[in-house]
C-alpha cells in the first residue's frame, strides 16, 4: 500500500500538468469550448472506466488514468468538435484500455487509440489546440516546462530524447532533399503537436517500457514509423500510428522475454 500523498504520484503530476495547460490554452485563446470538451471527455472516460472495472469484477478503482485520457482527448480534438463525438472518442479510448490487454495492462495508449479511431470513423478535426498550436511560439515554453516535469517524474527521458532526436534528424534529412513537407513539421502547429506527443503521450507508463535500453528502442521506433508515414501521407495520424506500433512491439518483446525466462527456468542449462 503506497503512503505517497496524491499530488506526488506520477499520474497526479500528469493530471495537474494537463489541467494547467488546459487552463492556459483556454485563457490565451479566449475559447472556453475546450474546457467544456474536457468536462465531457473526462466524465465519459471516468464513467466508462468505472463500468468496465465493475464488469471485470476488479476491486480497486482509481479514476486517474481515465481523467488523463479524457484531458488528452480534449486538448487534441478541435474545440469545434461536437460534444457527442468527444464522448464517443473517450468511450473508444477507454474500451481499448479494457479490451486490448496483456497481463492486465492496456496494450495501446488509450487516448491515442481513441483519437486514431475518431479520425478514421468521423474524420474529426484534430487541432492540438491544447499544445498551443494556434498561439505565439513563446507559449511552447509552458509545454516544455510541464512536459519535462512529467517526463522526469515518470522517468522516461531516454524514450523522449531517443524519439525527438531521431524524429528531428530524419525530418532534417528529408528537408535537405525536399521530401515530405518537412518544413511544416518544424513549425507550429506541428512542432507543438510533436512536443506534446513526446512529453505527455509517449511517456504513458503502462504502455511503454521501463528499462533505458527498451525505452530508447521504443522511442526510435515511434519516430521512424511516424516520419515515414508523415513523409508519404502527411495528415495528422503519423504520430499516433508510430506510437501504436511501438506499443505493439513492446508487448511482443515482453512476451518473448517472459517466454525465454519461463523456458530457461523449466530447462536450466546443464552444469558441468
Amino acid at each position, binding site marked *: 500500500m503506497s503512503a505517497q500523498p496524491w499530488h506526488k504520484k506520477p499520474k497526479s503530476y500528469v493530471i495537474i500538468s494537463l489541467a494547467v495547460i488546459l487552463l492556459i490554452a483556454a485563457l490565451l485563446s479566449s475559447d472556453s469550448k475546450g474546457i467544456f470538451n474536457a468536462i465531457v471527455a473526462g466524465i465519459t472516460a471516468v464513467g466508462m472506466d468505472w463500468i468496465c472495472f465493475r464488469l471485470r469484477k476488479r476491486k480497486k478503482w482509481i479514476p486517474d488514468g481515465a481523467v488523463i485520457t479524457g484531458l488528452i482527448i480534449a486538448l487534441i480534438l478541435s474545440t469545434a468538435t461536437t460534444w457527442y463525438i468527444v464522448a464517443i472518442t473517450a468511450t473508444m479510448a477507454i474500451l481499448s484500455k479494457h479490451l486490448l490487454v496483456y497481463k492486465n495492462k492496456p496494450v495501446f495508449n488509450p487516448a491515442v487509440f481513441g483519437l486514431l479511431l475518431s479520425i478514421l470513423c468521423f474524420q474529426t478535426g484534430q487541432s492540438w489546440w491544447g499544445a498551443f498550436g494556434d498561439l505565439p511560439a513563446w507559449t511552447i515554453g509552458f509545454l516544455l516546462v510541464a512536459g519535462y516535469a512529467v517526463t522526469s517524474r515518470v522517468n522516461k527521458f531516454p524514450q523522449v530524447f531517443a524519439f525527438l532526436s531521431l524524429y528531428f534528424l530524419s525530418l532534417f534529412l528529408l528537408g535537405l532533399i525536399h521530401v515530405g513537407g518537412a518544413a*511544416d513539421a518544424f513549425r507550429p502547429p506541428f512542432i507543438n503537436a510533436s512536443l506534446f506527443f513526446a512529453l505527455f503521450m509517449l511517456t504513458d507508463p503502462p504502455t511503454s517500457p521501463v528499462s533505458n535500453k527498451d525505452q530508447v528502442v521504443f522511442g526510435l521506433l515511434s519516430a521512424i514509423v511516424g516520419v515515414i508515414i508523415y513523409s508519404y501521407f502527411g495528415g495528422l495520424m503519423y504520430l499516433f500510428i508510430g506510437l501504436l506500433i511501438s506499443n505493439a512491439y513492446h508487448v511482443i518483446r515482453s512476451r518473448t522475454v517472459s517466454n525465454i525466462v519461463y523456458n530457461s527456468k523449466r530447462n536450466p542449462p546443464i552444469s558441468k
Partner: protein
Amino acid sequence: MAKMDKKWVILCTTAIGVIYSAGYLSTEEQAALQEPQHHINSNIQSVSSQVKSQYKNGTFDGAGSNRRGSIEVKVTINHDKITDVEISRFAMHYSKNDVVGLPQEVIQKQSAKVQNVSGATYSTQAFQDAIEAALTQARNV
C-alpha cells in the same frame, strides 16, 4: 530504474535543440515557397463592357491559408453571378472530404460566407479566404 542525471538531461536537450534549429533553418526557403501566392489573376476571359457591373466576367484564382495548410480555388463569374467554383489545390493537413460540399454552397448562396463545417474550422476558413481573394480579384475597380 535510476533517474537520468541532470547534466545528461541538459546535454541531450541541447543536442536536440541543435538538430531542431538545423532543421528549421534548412527548411526556411521551403516554408516560404509553400505560402500560397495571393492575388494571382488568371484566365480572365473577357472584361465586362457593363460599366456598372460589380465583377468582371471570367475565371479568377484565389488562395487561403493558415497554419494547417492552404487551399486554392478557381471562381468563374458571369454577369455578376458565381457560376462555378473549383478547388484547384488542396494542401491542408485534413481530409479534402471536409470541404467537398463547400463549392456548391458558394454557388447557391452567391457568397463566400459558407457554413462552418463542424470539426473542420481551419479548412473552412482557408476555403472562405480563398473565395474572398478570388472575388477581390474579380471586383471591378
